[in-house]
């Protein structure tokens, strides 16, 4: 057991080429000093409140719950500027980049949500931005590619490997190893080498803090369940962190089961992966017996990642959080159901959390309150879902 800031139990660390260690240490120092700086906190919360639109509402659904005894609340990160929770931590890291006198930002993106959020922050704060995106994801998420370019970012399609998020991370890391003097690598989730998992959590934890206040106002007590989808795990850790000490709140992370956990087409790293090292961190990883990384799969590009943040690996093994999974089809059904029953079109990522909330609500005998992190809105998925529906109607 390692007792230091780089680790969550046995998970985490800084497994990167020696060349990148000084850049990560510089980032760690900048982050630590910013946490004691009232000016930094003031500027960050000014951006969050007056630019991005925090706090986001907590909405009690009217028609969604399949069980009269169960109330389902939605934390409306879909209403945040940029359309997803990603904007929170991107603003935090962009401020840190300025604090370190960096002039350029490198980012990777899967669904394009992190890329868009990064392009937004860079436009606002005058930083030069380049975003690596797998070529398959570029094709799946055309509108976001256009958005990023409109916002002034350079989008670089990655053809290597599987052409998805993990390959985009590889390219971003390679870029950073020759550009770290001027560039900050703005990693998009609570994974990767230290200090990213801790830093991203700290820049996302307002989600859970707001939920805590809001649910007390609505219900006068803590929720029974808090549910979030898990790819890398940033929206989930943002929701969970506040509730970790409150043992009565059951925390549930929902992974993408894709076409089924017993197929080769899923991204359920915590459910099916093995301990290993990918992108700088010791965590659960989808891999073969030799340690070659396997390609993940999900209908949702934002959950299509073969590793997971190290704190989630720790929370799984400690038993504090349950990690379950739902299939593509369950997520697509939830996507439609929320649209029709509440007039809210969720991101396919968030639809996974919602789908599990529906399964849970149906199974409960007693009264219960569930909070679902609606981490993003579904506009980016409309074209893709429309095509999927057309394909299935032709079958």
């Amino acid at each position, binding site marked *: 057991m390692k007792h230091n800031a780089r680790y969550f139990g046995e998970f985490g*660390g*800084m*497994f*990167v*080429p*020696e*060349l*990148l*260690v*000084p*850049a990560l240490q510089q980032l760690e120092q900048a982050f630590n000093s910013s946490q004691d700086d009232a000016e930094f906190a003031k500027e960050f919360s000014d951006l969050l409140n007056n630019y991005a639109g925090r706090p986001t509402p907590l909405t009690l659904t009217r028609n969604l719950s399949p069980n009269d005894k169960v109330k389902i609340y939605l934390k409306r990160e879909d209403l945040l500027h940029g359309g997803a929770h990603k904007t929170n931590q991107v603003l935090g890291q962009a401020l840190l980049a300025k604090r370190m006198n960096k002039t350029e930002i490198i980012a990777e993106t899967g669904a394009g949500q992190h890329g868009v959020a990064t392009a937004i922050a860079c436009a606002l704060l005058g930083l030069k931005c380049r975003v690596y995106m797998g070529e398959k994801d570029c094709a799946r998420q055309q509108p976001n590619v256009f958005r990023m370019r409109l916002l002034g970012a350079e989008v670089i399609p990655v053809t*290597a*490997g599987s052409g998805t998020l*993990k*390959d985009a991370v*590889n390219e971003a*890391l*390679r870029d950073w*190893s*020759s*550009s*770290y*003097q001027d560039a900050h690598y703005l990693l998009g989730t609570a994974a990767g080498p230290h200090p990213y998992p801790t830093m991203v959590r700290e820049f996302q934890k307002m989600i859970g803090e707001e939920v805590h206040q809001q649910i007390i106002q609505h219900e006068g007590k803590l929720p029974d369940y808090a549910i979030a989808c898990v790819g890398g795990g940033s929206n989930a850790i943002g929701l969970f962190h506040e509730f970790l000490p409150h043992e009565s709140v059951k925390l549930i992370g929902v992974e993408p089961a894709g076409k089924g956990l017993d197929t080769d087409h899923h991204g359920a790293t915590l459910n099916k992966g*093995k*301990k*290993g*090292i*990918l*992108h*700088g961190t*010791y965590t659960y*990883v989808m*891999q073969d*017996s*030799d*340690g*070659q*990384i396997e390609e993940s799969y999900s209908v949702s590009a934002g959950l299509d990642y073969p590793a997971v943040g190290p704190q989630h690996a720790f929370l799984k093994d400690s038993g504090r959080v349950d990690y379950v999974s739902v299939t593509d089809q369950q997520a697509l059904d939830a996507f439609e159901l929320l649209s029709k029953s509440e007039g809210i079109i969720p991101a396919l990522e968030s639809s996974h959390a919602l789908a599990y909330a529906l399964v849970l609500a149906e199974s409960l005998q007693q009264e219960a309150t569930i909070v679902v992190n609606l981490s993003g809105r579904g506009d980016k998925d409309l074209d893709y879902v429309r095509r999927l529906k057309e394909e299935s109607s032709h079958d």
Partner: protein
Amino acid sequence: MTDQTANQSRYNRLFEKLAKKNQGAFVPFVTLCDPNLELSFKIIQCLVESGADALELGFPFSDPIADGPVIQAASIRALQAGSSNQKCFDLIARVRQAYSEIPIGLLLYSNLVVATGIESFYEKANEAGVDSILIADVPIIESQAFCEIAQKHQIAPIFIATPNASAETLRQVAENGKGYTYLLSRAGTTGTEVKAEMPVDNILNQLRQNNASPPLLGLGSPIPNRSKKPLA
């Protein structure tokens, strides 16, 4: 080959021999099983017959973040040709059987070691006749678990002295690295263009002051392999 002590390792014997002749070492790099098992053996034979002083051999890995497009492509070719960790060890054993004295270093990524089991990986490496292992994504700060087991199995752990390393890191590179010290004069991945080469005099001086193992300069030049320039 299992009874080496630090004083009589193949690297030591090589560096002593070269020092007498006032020569540097030429250490070419190739990826194992690229483009396939049989040709890979012939390529390595060719390198040795052509005068390589030592070998640096890469295990193919799906996500080589420290390498540029040339070596990544080599990894992908090797994996598509059916490479596995065991086939790589078998290939090294063949090389060792053919050339008993040439130092063999491995360059690879941590997940291959962790997935096999750290202890088991170093044991297999030793049995195959490997002299040193450089894990591209294990910096000094995370190296303790690997170093201890490496030395138990008579494998020299190799660390990279980078142009941006602190004095303390260089001291630890000198202290923990055995066999040779991988000297990096430039930022970036292998085989890619970078903005500037950095001066190595200062790093060299610090390594000498800390009695580091002899330095080999990683060229990382944009030619289709990684090679090392002799340092007088």
